[in-house]
């Protein structure tokens, strides 16, 4: 069972983020973390491997710093890691990223692709589906359970008010939702292996891509502007007797805020 896991390095949830002067770039404090949904994906891949044997290959697209999430994957137990690193890959949208990832995935035979249901930095939640589309695979989004047998997979997906169970032939792509598993904490033996691991790197040329097909040039979606949410007005305290205060609150809601 060959399993590919797509991982993304994102700004640490506590990193400071500011909008650049041009309004379309972000200045992000250089503190990084692995996207939490991708951790579920790696954990699931390792559990499948433990049940069925095989190989777990972790792939990330990003700059050199992204090597840390790949090493984390190896520390957790992944067998191989691949960094897609090229100036031409940067600043792409979900489409351009999914396109490059799908090319890299297709280089080796695989049975299962796992990734997070969304990255918690831009929250778009589109790369997994697009990779499946580029590779012509079934896609099951937001799984909370996965069982694999004889070339087929049964997955559970949380839906409003219940659970949906679906079956797909392999190879297929699944995106991981919270609740799928509890990612392991790496053992020191894994950490040591990861520290010494040589991480393979591929460029656009290695994947047979022209720079125009990837990154900013290959993107279909362009950021026009970032803006901050409107500041919430200060809390207004209505003083007086409860009855009068309540009437005043209703008056404000109806006449001023016009919520009714």
């Amino acid at each position: 069972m060959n399993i590919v896991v797509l991982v993304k390095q994102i700004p640490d949830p506590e990193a400071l983020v500011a909008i650049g002067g041009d309004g379309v770039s972000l200045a992000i404090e250089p503190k990084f973390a692995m996207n939490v949904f991708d951790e579920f994906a790696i954990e699931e891949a390792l559990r499948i491997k433990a049940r069925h044997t095989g190989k777990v290959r972790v792939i990330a697209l990003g700059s050199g710093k992204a090597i840390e999430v790949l090493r984390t994957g190896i520390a957790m137990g992944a067998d191989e890691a691949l960094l897609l690193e090229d100036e031409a890959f940067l600043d792409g949208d979900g489409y351009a990223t999914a396109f490059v990832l799908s090319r890299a995935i297709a280089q080796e035979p695989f049975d299962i692709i796992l990734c997070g249901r969304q990255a918690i930095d831009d929250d778009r939640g589109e790369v997994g589906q697009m990779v499946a589309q580029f590779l012509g695979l079934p896609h099951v989004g937001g799984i909370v359970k996965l069982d694999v047998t004889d070339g087929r997979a049964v997955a559970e997906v949380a839906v409003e008010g219940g659970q949906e169970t679906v079956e797909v032939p392999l190879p297929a792509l699944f995106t991981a939702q919270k609740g799928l598993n509890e990612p392991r904490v790496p053992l020191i033996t894994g950490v040591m292996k990861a520290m010494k691991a040589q991480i393979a790197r591929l460029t656009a040329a290695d994947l047979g891509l022209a720079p125009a097909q990837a990154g900013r040039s290959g993107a279909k979606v362009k950021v026009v502007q970032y803006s901050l949410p409107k500041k919430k007005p200060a809390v207004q305290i209505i003083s007086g007797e409860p009855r009068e205060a309540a009437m005043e609150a209703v008056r404000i809601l109806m006449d001023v805020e016009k919520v009714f």
Partner: protein
Amino acid sequence: MDFALTEEQEFFKKIITDTVDRLIVPKAREIDEKEEFPRELWREFTGLGYLGLRYPEEIGGMNADPVTAMIFYEQLARGSVGFAQSVIMNALMGTYFIYRFGTEEIKKRCLYPAMRGEKIATMCFTEDQSGSDLAATRTRAEKDGSDWVLNGTKMWITNGPIADIATVLATTDMAKGAKGLNFFLVEKGTPGFSPGQVLDKLGCRGTVTGELVFDNVRIPAENLLGTEVNKGVEYLSEILDEVRTMTGAMALGIAQAAYDEGLDYARKRVAFGKTIGSYQLIRAKFADMATEMEASRLMVYYAAWRIKEKLSCRKEAAMAKMFATETCLKVVDEVTRIWGANAFAHEYNPQRYFRDARFLLYGGGTHEIIKDFLGRMIIGKH
């Protein structure tokens, strides 16, 4: 000059930071409040293999260099000092002499299980009348045939009351002072070896600290940890710099934990219609804290680098320990001011950092002793 961590060290820092955040930070308050050794966390954390950090890979360790070890000590202390003390005692002082001088039999029985967290190790220096003044050690070791017989009482022993294996400092001849000292291995269950009083402490309350009593404890010749008799102080000097620098690293960790909470509070707490972080006096506090923490961090990691490069480090380690500790004490104090009265409530963490940081004043040598040592070293004997 090169101030950068290697890619491997950066990665280790990332992993240990995440591991501490995930396993230790959420339990830190409970560890402090319950004031008991967190056995479940101990099993969970030590099961990952970190206790063998400093030891060779061939025996299940990681062969980490001193800089990497310092990252480990710093991050652990950031999570919970009480827990960090227990772990570091096991990983460094409590096992070092067994690793260095133990027979293969002793290593199989004591070191390897301690590296796996199955046995809890400690080192016993302090007595009620001696701490930094090692030459005043009164615990006696007398030769009887080929055996040694130990008598005395140790105090302030980290992990002491729960220890399975103890490295005990004892004198063969009090008249010889520091030149009569030796380390002996004593295992739990040896007749005459028993825990005494457990101390009720201001901080580091997750660590069990207390008294150990040695009443005619008979141990075989191979339990003398050393190739020669009366060389204890010489052997101690092999890890003294790392122990002192480690204390500095723990100071960095506590300071960072307090600073992070102070920063979070300064960004959120509103007074007079503005966040308090927008006031100059609060900003000044962060400028000072950040500057002194930066200086402390450079000193600690510089000392660690000197140990790694096998350069003399007695002075640098002592300075790093003292400076980082004083910085930490200042930071935990400032953070309680930034938090205002909330820092006085047990409900929040700043009071814990404030209490925990005090232990740094004594561990690794009091600053009175360190200043005297440094002054003598600088001025020379006159």
